């Protein structure tokens, strides 16, 4: 290994790049973008290879790891359907380079296709002339599971069905580009394109300027403006409607929402009243003007489509029909995604746009036509047989395209039989061959077939604009037939390079057009709920870890290192047991205490630290559009499994302290932060009250009091104030009533009151809301109590009041109860 991730000098990099180029461009079995590149394109590739070499020299796998690490820092992840864990995004460090001239042709073809698909959708759901005049069979429309009859006759507000469009392209052996598939329903991947670009430019820093690579930002700005332009209100609120955290591309959705400034919402956050759409926020219901939806259209509205949908918004389609909400894309537009439509698009292009397709799609025969069916059956060995629509036909149970020649005799018989019964379910397609591109694999550059996903969006004038680039999906095997590629295993950035430097200034909006905003906008109730509980769980974990550490003998006050008195140990154990972290040990012998601590730390049940951590991680995952990446990474860090229990507890406690520091220092003081901190304060106040009740009431020993100071992190403050040893009243005063001690109960209660005073209220009558009244009453109790009066009953009263306060906060701000029941069912005979 020559050099391990050491920046290589430019001279070395150039030498390495030349060697890679020479090695790579030897004889290849099929067309490759680099091998067949024209001189100016080849020069661009050479620059890219040089940048690659300057990162890690010849250690290509190191470079790949580095770009991978950037991707995971950015938070890119995806989920394979059916899996719960997110996977890291597989990214090859070397981008696909496309020259500006070639790209212009591609972009023009994508725009033409987007306009064509819009025209087809508008006709299907509008005048219906294509079907009535025989240009499109009715069965080609009704066969799509994405055809939604209830949308017929509904004019989309703003005039467009599509605002965003994704298309999968491939480059043929002769450099000709072709369309493989259209995506209009939930065009996944724009976020990945953004993240790929970010990761690659962090790794190959000089690439952007050396190759004049076109930037992504203007495209997303145009999309945002385009969607805003079709809303009725001048400053619209736009939401990204997600199916939730278990969706395959939740990470991408969260990233896009944050990037575009859209509100990440789920169906449960939304409500339709009098044909208007609202989001439930901590400040009441707020109008929503448009939704960029990632929810299966059939589940969007249980009153319009699938009545069993639990993730939809009842009445959403009515609100759309009334013109009050823009749905992008409009439900039912997925009807144009059918493979079968490709058989008709060439003629439809001429008819609807007056021009033939600039980017052809794979030649396609829909077997619903008798002549076409004959054609396909006769040429089955030279064709790909694919489902005509999204659902798997009986003759292709896997639902995937197959190469006719590769069918076993049994498969062929079954397929031919069903082609006879239900020809409408099938298409025949020409076998499309792909170019390859260089990919870092096994420490060297290897040619792999690829496809490219390209994105287009409407700008403020309704005109289509194309993202310069996109992302490439790379096949696992060297087989260049598109049909065997599947979804691709690796991805790569796609860079459009040109001779002219990219104008940086144009990316910034002119100063006059931006209204300054300090309020970052709306906080949905669900998000507030999550942040509040994240605060509570993190604080609970931190407190429990502190208690475990004290129990295991870590005490600043233990001068001689002697163990705590047995009574004190049992009281500590009682605190841990009461929190639900572990059942009580049989004795306080060393071994049993260690086992007890292990259970409290690691048990897979109850409220162990591990379970608390898991809860916090779950909430962190759904709040990723609101939390700093560092915070998420700390939450996701592996659970320590080595070392003494004390070491493990210590390392976890430091992690929790870091989390507390991150939220204190890095979260901006939004309402979201307030809920997070409110959760922490209520949790800490509750824990303190319980600790005082257990260790600080009449008859407490010196060990008890010292332990109480440890739990309240107030040992040093006490020493500085009191030269005497442990005395109950001063200890209790410091931990409970001293407003200057940031760990005291009084401090938490004051902070709670401040938060609640600054959160929005609903009424305009000036009266305190219930949660505010409860906080004020609690503050009154604390400020009028004297330390000598504090006993078990006083602390229990405080705990009850805190619980009531928490409930009042939940009732006022969070989504509560009222689960929708389905009014369905009927007796049948």
């Amino acid at each position, binding site marked *: 290994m020559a050099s391990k991730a050491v920046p290589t000098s430019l001279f070395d990099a150039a030498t390495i790049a030349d060697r890679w180029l020479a090695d790579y461009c030897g004889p290849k079995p099929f067309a490759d973008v680099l091998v067949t590149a024209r001189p100016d394109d080849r020069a661009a590739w050479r620059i890219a290879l040089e940048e690659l070499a300057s990162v890690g020299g010849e250690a290509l796998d190191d470079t790949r790891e580095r770009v991978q690490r950037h991707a995971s820092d950015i938070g890119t992840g995806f989920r394979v359907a059916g899996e719960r864990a997110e996977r890291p995004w597989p990214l090859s460090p070397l981008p696909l380079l496309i020259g500006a001239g070639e790209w212009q042709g591609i972009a023009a073809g994508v725009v033409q296709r987007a306009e064509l698909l819009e025209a087809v959708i508008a006709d299907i759901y509008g005048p219906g002339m294509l079907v009535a005049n025989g240009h499109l069979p009715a*069965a080609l429309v*009704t066969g799509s599971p994405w055809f939604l009859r209830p949308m017929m*006759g*509904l004019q989309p507000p703003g005039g467009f069905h599509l605002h965003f469009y994704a298309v999968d392209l491939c480059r043929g052996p002769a450099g000709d580009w072709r369309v493989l598939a259209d995506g209009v329903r939930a065009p996944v991947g724009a976020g990945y394109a953004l993240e790929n670009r970010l990761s690659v430019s962090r790794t190959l820093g000089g690439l952007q300027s050396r190759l004049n690579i076109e930037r992504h930002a203007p495209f997303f700005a145009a999309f945002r403006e385009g969607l805003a332009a079709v809303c009725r209100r001048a400053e619209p609120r736009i939401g990204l409607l997600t199916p939730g955290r278990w969706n395959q591309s939740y990470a991408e959705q969260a990233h896009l929402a944050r990037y575009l400034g859209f509100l990440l919402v789920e169906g449960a956050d939304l409500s339709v009243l009098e044909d208007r759409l609202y989001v439930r926020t901590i400040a009441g219901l707020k109008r929503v003007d448009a939704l960029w939806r990632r929810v299966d259209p059939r589940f969007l509205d249980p009153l319009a489509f*699938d009545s*069993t949908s639990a993730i939809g918004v009842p009445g959403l389609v009515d609100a759309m029909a009334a013109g009050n909400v823009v749905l992008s894309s409009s439900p039912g537009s997925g009807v144009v995604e059918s493979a079968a439509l490709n058989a008709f698009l060439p003629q439809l292009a001429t008819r609807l746009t007056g021009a033939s397709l600039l980017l052809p799609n794979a030649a396609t025969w829909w077997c619903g036509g008798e002549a076409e069916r004959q054609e396909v059956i006769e040429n089955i060995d030279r064709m790909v047989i694919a489902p005509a*629509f999204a659902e798997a036909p009986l003759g292709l149970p896997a639902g995937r395209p197959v190469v006719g020649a590769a069918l076993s005799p049994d498969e062929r018989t079954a397929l031919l039989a069903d082609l006879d019964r239900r020809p409408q379910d099938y298409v025949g397609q020409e076998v499309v061959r792909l170019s390859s591109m260089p990919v870092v694999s096994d420490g060297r550059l290897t040619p792999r077939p690829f496809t490219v996903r390209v994105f287009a969006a409407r700008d403020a004038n309704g005109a289509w604009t194309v993202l310069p680039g996109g992302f490439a999906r790379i096949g696992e095997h060297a087989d260049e037939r598109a049909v065997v590629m599947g979804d691709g295993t690796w991805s790569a950035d796609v860079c459009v390079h040109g001779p002219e430097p990219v104008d940086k200034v144009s990316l910034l909006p002119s100063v006059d057009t931006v209204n300054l905003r300090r309020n970052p906008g709306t906080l949905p109730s669900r998000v507030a709920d999550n942040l509040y509980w994240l605060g509570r769980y993190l604080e609970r974990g931190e407190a429990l870890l502190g208690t475990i550490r004290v129990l295991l003998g870590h005490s600043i006050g233990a001068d001689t290192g002697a163990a705590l008195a047995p009574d004190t140990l049992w009281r500590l154990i009682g605190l841990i047991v009461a929190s639900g972290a572990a059942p009580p040990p049989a004795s306080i012998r060393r071994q049993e205490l260690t086992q007890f601590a292990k259970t409290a730390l690691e048990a897979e049940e109850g409220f162990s630290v591990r379970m608390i951590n898991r809860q916090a991680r779950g909430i962190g995952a759904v709040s990723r559009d609101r939390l700093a990446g560092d915070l998420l990474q700390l939450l996701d860090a592996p659970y320590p499994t080595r070392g003494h229990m004390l070491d493990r507890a210590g390392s976890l406690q430091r992690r929790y302290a870091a989390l507390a520091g991150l939220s204190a220092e890095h979260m901006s003081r939004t309402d979201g932060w307030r809920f997070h901190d409110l959760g922490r304060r209520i949790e800490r106040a509750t824990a303190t009250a319980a600790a005082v009740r257990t260790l600080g009431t009449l008859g407490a020993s010196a060990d008890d009091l010292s332990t109480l100071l440890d739990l309240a992190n107030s040992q040093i403050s006490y020493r500085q104030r009191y030269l005497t040893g442990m005395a109950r009243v001063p200890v209790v005063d410091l931990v409970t009533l001293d407003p200057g001690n940031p760990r005291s109960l009084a401090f938490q209660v004051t902070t709670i009151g401040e938060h609640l005073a600054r959160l929005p209220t609903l009424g305009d009558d000036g009266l305190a809301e219930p949660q505010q009244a409860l906080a004020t009453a609690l503050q009154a109790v604390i400020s009028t109590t004297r330390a000598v009066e504090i006993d078990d009953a006083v602390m229990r009263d405080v705990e009850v009041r805190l619980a009531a306060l928490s409930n009042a906060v939940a009732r006022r701000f969070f989504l509560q109860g009222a689960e929708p029941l*389905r009014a369905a069912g*009927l007796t049948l*005979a």
Partner: protein
Amino acid sequence: MRYQIRHVTRFDYAEPAGFARCNLRLKPIHWSGQRLEDYHLAVEPGGDTAPARAEAGLANVTRLVVETAARTLTITSSARVTVDRLLPIPDPGDPTLATIAAAARVSRDMGAASPAAYLFPSPRIPLDPAIAAWCAAELAPDRPCLEAAIGLARAIQRDFAFDPTATLVDTPAREAFDRRGGVCQDFAQIMIGGLRAAGLPAAYASGYLRTLPPLGQPRLVGADATHAWVLLWCGDALGWVGVDPTNGIWMAQDHVVMAIGRDYADIAPIDGVILGSGAQAMHVSVDVEPLD
């Protein structure tokens, strides 16, 4: 035949339900061979009703919005319908199954009654290889369509047991098929699945069936139920023809069509959302009274 139909649905909630938005598809549609003479819909304790937008199937849809909290919600649908429907008579000269399948594939009709709308699997009736294979015995492509339709309906009636305990409203067709038992919806779904697997346009009809009391006994008021059966499109000349696989008979004088869709989900008599936190119970009573 003239019928007075009374269809009462009562929802009981453990806790008062605050808010309901439902689609009611209870008013019988216009359909060949039947005429709706009078119709009345009553909702207790009250709510706003308005015609809803067009829907997935052929149904008269009413949107019901209830905003007052109540422990019960009672929906009473009363219809007077005259049925005058000819009994289909199979003829060797009827179009073959292959002919009607091919005609449906090239249909230029995008309406909700177009055969093209019923050619494909639907959410509750996916294509199933076992059901397809079993039904195929009656569905040779060169068989005249009416003969095949009644043949398949009779085969289902013969080989499947009527068993209200075997299935629920959301039991998949395949499960009922494997049990060889179920109720009208199961038989309709099995037959539709078989017809569609053979490339034929088949629809799900829901409505009412006049039931005759056992000989010498009085008719029991409210003891009837809603019924489901099958429509097969038999070409432009014959149009949609109804067959009832539960009873192995044609749709004729005793059947009143309420709604038609690809499957039950398109035309559930009542569905929607009710916000509440407690349990929900539902009671349905149907009475089909012959007036002459």
